[in-house]
């Protein structure tokens, strides 16, 4: 038995690996396939593994209704990530280079900010934005999302800047180029991989954020796809095929980001030690 096990070890490992693989692929597969089933087939028993007559028309309908939501998602994700990159790069650089007794306290503030729950900020920000007349305005959601992506970016990029030797910047200064110019043209390109990591994770988080747009954007025309999906479940509770089609459409941009930047995502998670 033991020798048999040893002999077939690779085979056994591969079989277990395939089961694990199925546990992660099956729910995603089921989402996509369910999205293409007809309203009757979705409730068929036994369930069909592959749609017998895929209802592309219905999927297309759902896709069309999802487009305004996706547009909002892209606007929110793009601007939140832009804010995150600018503040993360400048803040992370300053924090890496600044040598005062305050530096570590500022770092501690960013570390704590990164871990605080959004539920803690949603109530006060709601009142603050209400008083500032910023509800039903993308600005409120973008700022609220950046309140957890910026601390992540500052901490991650600080680590990247710390690893850079300072003589390059000093050489540039002696050359007579301005400090900010040398930061922009000499220092920043050196941390390009980290900038990609920060952008990728920030895009994933801001695209997937739910609680802030749910609370601040009551105007349906402005709601992102996550809130759209949530509304859709309420409205279409008996039409799981349409709900799954909407979920598939919402997940698609995330899957594309994942396929393009999986290496960076893995690095971002392990380097920063961050989850969401």
């Amino acid at each position, binding site marked *: 038995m033991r020798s048999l096990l040893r002999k077939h070890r690779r085979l056994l490992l591969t079989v277990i690996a395939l089961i694990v*693989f199925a546990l992660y692929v099956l729910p995603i597969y089921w989402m996509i396939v369910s999205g293409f089933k007809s309203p009757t087939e979705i409730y068929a028993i036994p*369930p069909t593994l592959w749609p017998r007559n895929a209802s592309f028309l219905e999927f297309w309908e759902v896709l069309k209704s999802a487009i305004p939501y996706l547009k909002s998602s892209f606007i929110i994700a793009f601007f939140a990530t832009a804010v995150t990159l600018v503040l993360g790069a400048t803040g992370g650089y300053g924090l890496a280079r600044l040598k005062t007794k305050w530096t570590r306290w500022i770092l501690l503030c960013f570390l704590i900010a990164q871990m605080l*729950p959004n539920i803690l900020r949603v109530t006060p920000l709601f009142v603050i934005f*209400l008083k500032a007349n910023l509800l039903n305005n993308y600005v409120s959601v973008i700022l609220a999302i950046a309140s957890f992506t910026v601390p992540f970016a500052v901490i991650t990029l600080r680590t990247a800047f710390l690893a850079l030797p300072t003589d390059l910047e000093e050489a540039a200064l002696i050359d007579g180029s301005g400090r900010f110019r040398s930061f922009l043209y000499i220092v920043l390109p050196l941390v390009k991989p980290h900038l990609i990591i920060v952008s990728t994770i920030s895009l994933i988080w801001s695209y997937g954020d739910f609680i802030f747009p749910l609370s601040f954007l009551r105007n349906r025309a402005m709601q992102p796809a996550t809130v759209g999906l949530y509304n859709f479940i309420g409205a279409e509770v008996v039409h799981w095929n349409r709900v799954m089609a909407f979920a598939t459409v919402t997940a698609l941009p995330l899957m594309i980001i994942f396929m393009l930047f999986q290496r960076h995502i893995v690095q971002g998670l392990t380097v920063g030690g961050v*989850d969401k």
Partner: protein
Amino acid sequence: MGFESRNNRFYMKMMLPAIVFLAALVVYPIVYNFRLSLQDATLRTIRLPEMPFVGLGNYASVLSNPLFPVSMARTLVFTAGSIFFQFVIGFALALFLFRQFPLNKFVRTTIIMGWVLAPIIVGTVWSWLLNTDHGLINYLLKTAGIIGQGIGWLTDPNIAMRGVIIANVWFGIPFNMLLLTGGLSALPTDVYEAADIDGTSPLQKFFFITLPLMKPTIGAVLMLGTIYTLRVFDLLWVMTKGGPVNATTTLPLWSYQLSFDFFNLGEGAAASNILFVIMIVFTLLYIKFFSEEGWDA
């Protein structure tokens, strides 16, 4: 004015935008939340220039609300259940996929996709998988003869907590696995080579070499897991909204319901501050003992 201090002035200018942002969107809202928790902030008063102060009244009503002990218990069960399973399974997978065999990298990459999908999507898909009458899970269990009738994963108050934990574990495994894989790759290989020469069994190797060496990583993963599970909102909100009959109302959900369903923002703020106190303890412990930033204050 030395070179150093002129340098510092530039670095401070660079940091200023991020610090102003942090003050405005993190520190100020937290302070504002404390103030709000001492005020009567409801639909009736919210538009007033100054909402009336009620002292600790909101805390009194939150603490005396029968839902407070319920939500604390739900938070504990949800956090403990999620952490236990996602850690054990995540660790098993990390060890397993650490071995060299065909497909191991491919499988690891696929699992990480579970983390990339937003919690709201994961929650929606699992709601469908766990659907009582038409869900795939109940169908498979029935076909295998394990159950006769469909389980009300999300509709039975006695079982709903298990349903949401399953979904959250699925979402949490990739992260646990990834961090633990990182810890495993940092282990020294010579210890294992020596153990091989001594003829140590794989089980002994795990308990006497891997576990002790992995202690810092394990501590960090458990601590981070606790912090991130305590604050789960999206997944629960889309799957059950805290129901049925408050079976899955954790502290974050209850706070949100107080603020946005009952529009009692003062009580919602008070409830979230209780969560804040719990989380800050874990956060400071994590930063003190496990943070890679090498904090030693």
